[in-house]
């Protein structure tokens, strides 16, 4: 082996070697810069949030901060109603959107004949392109009266927001889970069918588990879309910053979400006031929640990846 000639070709002259290296250096660092800038920007955003919102957590007694009363005019800043509002709307949206989205994706990917798929897929992508404010408007003029007629005190409720949000996150959930189903090799389906599994058994026991990581991503992105949405929710949830009486009917009461609070009150506060700081504090809470959801998704997908490559089940 030692007698083998070197594979490097000495054809490059000494003159263009440095130039090549400079080009290489520039490209490498441009790529590095692009990658790092994302991290830096996220870091800066968080620092900015901390600077503007941090005082809220220091100046407001914790008992009040997590209390049930949000009366900024009287200087009482309790975040609980807003947290509960966001929670109700988001969880409601997820409960509606995840099963509906998954079933639609399964229908599109596994059951629908090709001609139907060709019509449905672009339509679903169009749904994603509808501006949120238009959906909010739709909820306000069409859905809210329906809910009021069904017996709620007002049509502008957490449920109305949940339905609108569900329809906003549906295209994300459907198209990403459909992609995940599509990526499942045909061999798996053949294998299951050849043992005598029915089509539904094949989907439920083989295709869905095989597509699990993609579906988790779809659901998480759907939730991410739902929790951060502002305008549509502001239009249809009634914006009452109080906690509905606990019970099954609470979803049919008006609520106010964290995002809607920031959007609604930001225009009226004096910069640097405690109220101003608190609104940024809400931003920090939102940031932490979304970050937690994303890392949870990452962990679920991560363990799945390890299994794929042959780790312990």
């Amino acid at each position, binding site marked *: 082996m030692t007698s083998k000639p070197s594979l490097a070709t000495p054809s490059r002259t000494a003159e263009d070697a440095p130039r090549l290296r400079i080009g290489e250096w520039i490209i490498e660092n441009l790529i590095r810069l692009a990658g790092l800038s994302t991290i830096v920007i996220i870091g800066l955003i968080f620092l900015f949030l901390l600077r503007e919102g941090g005082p809220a957590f220091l100046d407001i007694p914790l008992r009040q901060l997590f209390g049930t009363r949000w009366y900024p005019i009287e200087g009482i800043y309790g975040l609980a109603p807003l947290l509960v509002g966001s929670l109700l709307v988001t969880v409601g949206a997820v409960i509606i959107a995840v099963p509906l989205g998954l079933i639609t994706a399964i229908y599109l990917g596994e059951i629908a004949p090709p001609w139907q798929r060709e019509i449905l897929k672009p339509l679903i992508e169009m749904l994603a392109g509808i501006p949120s404010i238009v959906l909010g408007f739709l909820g306000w003029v069409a859905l809210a009266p329906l809910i009021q007629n069904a017996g709620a005190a007002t049509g502008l409720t957490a449920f109305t927001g949940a339905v609108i949000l569900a329809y906003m996150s549906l295209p994300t959930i459907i198209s990403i889970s459909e992609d995940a189903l599509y990526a499942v*090799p045909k*061999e*798996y*389906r*053949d*294998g*299951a*069918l*050849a*043992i*005598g*599994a*029915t089509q539904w*058994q094949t989907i439920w*026991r*083989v295709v869905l*588990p*095989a597509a699990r990581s993609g579906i988790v991503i779809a659901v998480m992105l759907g939730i991410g879309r739902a929790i951060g949405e502002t305008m549509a929710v502001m239009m249809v949830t009634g914006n009452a910053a109080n906690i509905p009486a606990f019970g099954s009917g609470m979803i049919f009461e008006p609520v106010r979400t964290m995002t809607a609070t920031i959007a609604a009150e930001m225009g009226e506060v004096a910069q640097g006031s405690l109220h101003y700081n608190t609104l940024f504090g809400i931003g920090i809470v939102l940031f932490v929640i979304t970050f937690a959801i994303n890392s949870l998704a990452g962990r679920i997908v991560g363990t799945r990846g390890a*299994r*794929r*490559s*042959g*780790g*312990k*089940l």
Partner: protein
Amino acid sequence: MENKIDVRDFNFFYSSFHALKGLTMPIRERQITALIGPSGCGKSTFLRSLNRMNDTIAGTRATGEVLLDGENIYAPDMDVTELRHRVGMVFQRPNPFPQSIFDNVAFGPRVLGMPAGKGLNKLVQESLEDAGLWTEIKHRLRDSALSLNPGQQQRLCIARAIAVKPEVILMDEPCSALDPVATFRVEELMRVLAKEYTIVIVTHNMQQAARVSDSTGFFWLGELVEFGPTDQLFAMPQEELTESYITGRRG
């Protein structure tokens, strides 16, 4: 010798393409029947017709009869899932599900409604033993099936197929993705399984057909040119086309 399957004047079409032309052949019980012929001659299509896997391809059509124990599997009242319980299949590329080794073998019994418990554990063990895989993997039943090497994966697929106690096992070039050692083990396994099961194997490898099978059918352009006992077909082919193919002059 009993005929497990009787194929009578069977034709198969992909849309307008006439892929199988008037096939008539017996498949004998507890024997290995090999199907040989050049690529595209219809032997895989024929194999997939025996458990109606071709149903999953749009625009296909079949005429004639395939009698399994005297019952036409193309009859309108045939239950296809039931048929596939009786006629299992092993594919060209090993296709274990991305689940644990145990779950792969337990898949069929579970689909048939077998509850978790001692019965299922025993069945999984027996199937793995019959597939000659048990001693190698008995300590890692919870590991992903994808962590096995290709030869083990293919034997796992065989274990998965026999876990539902089929009567016939169809094998579509089961060794083409395997190295010679793994191929040898699968061939050995086929000989053992033939004591209990009726096996039909499609192969590109004529030595393999000669080594493992009892009967051989030679396909050419969608027709069954010659069918007979393997030693006879390879030693004294009746048709000139067969002879030129097995001696490597055509194909």
